[in-house]
């Protein structure tokens, strides 16, 4: 009876609307049912808000201005449309500056599943433009606008398009040294970088020609400052080999370094394999033993094969460098995959022995699983101080996803049963761990346009999201992680939760602090992150360390355990802000004035910092002084073994001395 009443009401409010061919001629509509006779308006759709990649040639336009804040559903997923195939985009910003709000293609379930539906929160008085297009079909259909009281979703994203000219748009990382995430677009002979604007929203696009790139990042891309000039370099993993793009001239020039060796690249990473303070590179090889490139300290990488996953048939898809045994160095887990009767699909865990050698501990650790996987997501899902793993299935042939809890003793236990992953049937090649809703628990973004939100007790609940897998970073610097899909950025709609972001600047360690363990403490206890270059399968995501802290606001301390062994401790940092930590700037030994073989004095000082050396043959190459925000305030050659600090304001400064051999040492002084 109720149903009948509802359909009568709908029938009354339903009316035939004439096709509206342009945004300017959009037909104002209100909640109810509307009929589109045919999609024949000659306005091409080129701004795509939903998970789409193909433009459309014809469209029909409607405008809708809610009179209250509502959660609104726009849907063609109606029985009357069964068997049809629709698509729509929703914009704000006026016809001259359309800005994506939402869009959908196939979220409908009626008929063949090609109908569209989107639910989003809309603001009172804002005009929304709804454009249906002929991507799949130009024939007519009915759509409903349904207003409901405002419901705040657990997680949602708002699309916004950017203009990218390159072929491979798989990298979100800071490229100009300002610690803000930029967007990198790679082509054969150029890089396009969208530099995040410092003080305003949006990006500034720069196109930089490169020398010829032999291997494009078809399979993966990784970023890290391997020549230690303060700007990130890139590693491009192609189907036949690897190419590096190395910065020069303060990140304004990129020179390609193409390696001739045949590598069927899969996941690639930057990591400091031998802990000499310089980033090395690692590349998964699909069909041969893995390869890696050792850094000689001058930004020259030497190709190596052997010792880091040597199965003769390869099967290496998703490498991730993670300190699973909390011993201060990065271990290597490899998600593996291979058809046929072979052992090449058995996942491998290689423990870093701390001396440049590795031991395959897969079996002892209970991680030698034949699951067909292309990536695994690692995070401390239960906040007990060690890294757990979600090994993500790409195929069900050898079993589905496995959630592995770190037992804290070098072994893992399968805790999939009852975790939410036992009933999650979508499979895929991308699995990454981040706290997307800033509640203080690490979530997993994997297959099926679904984020598995961590319930805080080692169980996960699926939440459908519009974006697909892509590079992740904070592209509007609001403390909530966003997702890039090609030329669409899906901005994470913030909730009330609090956060902190920590940017590292390594001195003795590699300059990105890759391999560092970051810990934050507060009412929740402890949270940890490992700084990684290259997670999931294909994409490069931000190198900045991000934590959500839920409703808490007070962080009692942040501890950075650098690969060099240096430990920085920052007490009571402010939440909802970015904290930049220079290696050695917050060590607990406040009175240590030694910088390698040099000693600085006086400290505190008013006019000069002077340097003594125990080794009279050793010369100073340069001295850099940073303020507490990590900004360089002075660079000097320290002629006469002294640097003037008279022009500096009173306060605490970080000092980095580089000797003539290129070794760097850091310390702290007070100007008074």
């Amino acid at each position, binding site marked *: 009876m109720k149903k009948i009443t509802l359909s009568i009401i709908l029938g009354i409010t339903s009316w035939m609307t004439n096709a509206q061919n342009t945004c300017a001629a959009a037909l104002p509509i209100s909640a109810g049912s509307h009929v589109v006779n045919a999609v024949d308006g000659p306005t091409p759709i080129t701004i795509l808000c939903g998970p789409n990649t193909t433009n459309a040639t014809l469209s029909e336009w409607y405008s809708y201005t809610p009179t209250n804040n509502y959660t609104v559903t726009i849907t063609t997923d109606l029985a009357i449309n069964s068997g049809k195939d629709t698509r729509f985009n929703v914009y704000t910003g006026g016809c001259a500056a359309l800005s994506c709000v939402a869009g959908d293609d196939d979220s409908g379930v009626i008929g063949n599943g090609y109908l569209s539906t989107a639910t989003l929160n809309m603001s009172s008085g804002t005009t929304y433009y709804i454009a249906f297009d002929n991507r799949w079909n130009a024939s007519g259909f009915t759509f409903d606008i349904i207003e409901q009281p405002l419901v705040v979703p657990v997680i949602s994203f708002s699309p916004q398009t950017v203009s990218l000219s390159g072929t491979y748009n798989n990298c979100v990382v800071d490229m100009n040294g300002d610690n803000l995430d930029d967007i990198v677009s790679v082509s054969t002979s150029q890089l396009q970088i969208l530099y995040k604007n410092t003080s305003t929203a949006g990006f500034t696009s720069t196109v930089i020609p490169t020398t010829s790139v032999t291997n494009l990042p078809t399979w993966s891309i990784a970023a890290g400052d391997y020549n230690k000039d303060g700007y990130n370099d890139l590693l491009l993993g192609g*189907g036949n080999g690897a190419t590096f793009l190395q910065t020069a001239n303060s990140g304004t020039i990129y020179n390609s370094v193409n390696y001739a060796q045949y590598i069927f690249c899969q996941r690639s990473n930057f990591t400091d394999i031998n802990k000499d303070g310089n980033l090395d590179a690692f590349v998964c090889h699909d069909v041969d033993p893995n390869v890696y490139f050792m850094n000689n300290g001058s930004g020259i990488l030497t190709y190596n094969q052997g010792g880091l996953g040597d199965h003769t048939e390869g099967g290496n898809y998703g490498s991730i460098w993670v300190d699973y045994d909390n011993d201060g160095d990065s271990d290597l887990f490899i998600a593996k995959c291979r058809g*046929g009767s072979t052992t090449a699909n058995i996942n491998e865990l290689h423990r870093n022995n701390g001396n440049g050698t590795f031991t395959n501990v897969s079996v002892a650790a209970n991680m030698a699983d034949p699951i067909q996987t292309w990536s695994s997501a690692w995070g401390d899902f239960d906040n007990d101080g060690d890294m757990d793993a979600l090994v993500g299935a*790409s195929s069900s042939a050898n079993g589905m996803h496995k959630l592995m809890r770190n037992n804290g003793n070098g072994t893992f236990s399968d805790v999939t049963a009852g975790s939410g992953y036992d009933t999650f049937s979508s499979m895929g090649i991308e699995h990454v761990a981040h706290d997307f809703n800033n509640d203080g628990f690490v979530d997993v973004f994997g297959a099926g346009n679904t984020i598995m939100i961590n319930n805080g007790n080692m169980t996960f609940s699926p939440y459908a999201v519009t974006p697909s897998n892509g590079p992740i970073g904070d592209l509007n610097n609001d403390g909530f992680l966003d997702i890039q899909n090609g030329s669409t950025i899906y901005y994470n709609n913030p909730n009330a939760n609090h956060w902190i972001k920590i940017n590292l600047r390594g001195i003795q360690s590699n300059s990105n602090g890759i391999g560092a363990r970051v810990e934050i403490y507060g009412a929740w206890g402890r949270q940890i992150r490992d700084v990684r270059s290259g997670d999931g399968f294909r994409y490069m995501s931000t190198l900045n360390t991000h934590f959500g802290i839920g409703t808490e606001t007070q962080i009692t301390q942040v501890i950075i355990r650098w690969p060099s062994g240096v430990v920085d401790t920052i007490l009571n940092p402010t939440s909802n802000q970015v904290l930049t930590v220079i290696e050695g700037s917050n060590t607990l030994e406040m009175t240590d004035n030694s910088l390698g073989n040099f000693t600085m004095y006086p400290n505190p000082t008013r006019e000069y910092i002077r340097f003594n050396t125990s080794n009279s043959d050793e010369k100073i190459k340069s001295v850099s002084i940073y303020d507490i925000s990590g900004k360089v305030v002075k660079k000097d050659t320290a002629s006469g073994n002294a640097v003037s600090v008279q022009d500096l304001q009173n306060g605490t400064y970080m000092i980095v001395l580089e000797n003539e051999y290129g070794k760097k040492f850091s310390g702290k002084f007070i100007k008074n």
Partner: protein
Amino acid sequence: MQQKYLLRTFLFLSLLAFVFLLACNSSEDTEYTPVSPVSMDLTRVPYPKLSDYKFFEGTLKNLNPSYKVIPYELASGLFTDYALKKRFVWMPSGTKATYDGDGKILKFPVGTALIKTFYYDNVQPSETRQIIETRIMIKKSVNPVTLQDEWTFANYVWNDEQTEAYLDMNGSYSPISWKNENNVVKSSNYRIPSETECLMCHKSNERPIPIGPKPQNLNFSYTYTDGTKNQLAKWVEEGYLESYSDNIVSTVDWKDTSKPLETRVRSYIDANCAHCHSTNSHCDYRPMRFAFSETTNPVNLGICVAPQENIDNSLTYIITKGNSQRSVMHFRMSSVNEATRMPLLGRTIVHEEGVQLIQDWIDSLDPACN
């Protein structure tokens, strides 16, 4: 110059006379058994040069087969950037292959060589033929314990002068432009595979195997120098095949529009996709089973089967009936991105006619998936 010409003519005439003598001799009672000049020392192969095998007589680049080196073709072949191919088979004297099933590789004798040469015609700018590589698979032994065939790969890359091809298992690129039959100039950064790349397609349970010479792919007429004959019959006649079923379920030439569209499609997919999408192959963890013998089942073809790897949300099934634009197979065949294209190896440009074939077929399928 004149002298050289005379010398050549003299040699040619002597050769002719010799052949004539042989022919005369054979008709007489004195028994003469011709011997294949092919050299196949299984302890020494692969040889450093293609010519070392003596598969071809006369000028090497003419690929004029020696005695007992038999040309063959497959009903439908793998697309490799429009490269043209010549295939030959050779087996040691007194040995022959046996039939093991319509869709299974013939059981070849130890010492068998499968020889496949890749070349282009009308290569720019000189509009000449250019041979790029000759790939050989040699059956070296049968493992006495597992009874598995032990095949080895030998890949020979031709020199610029086209006088010789040298063993090279490391893989390389050979950029090439050519004019096709429609006078359109096409280009490819042609990839010569490394040994590992050979294995990726030519394997079962990580052990090397041939792909093409199955009865289903050979069961059609071929025009030999001495007339037209069914290839399997010819092989029997040559002593290269014990026997074969007279009721072989066979693939067809996908270009032959007189054949049913679905059979052409299944033949094309068998030749281009089944080497990875079969049990015990590189990607057997994916649900598709693309061998000709298995694609009578629509599920094995991926019809209305959801993909496990999401490339684009609009690609809802491997084959979306009636809608090629929503079909993963169509998308991957149209892609040149290494990470999304299919086949994974063997092509860098789009096989337009192949895509059209698949598109016509998908768009003809109904009713829609639901």
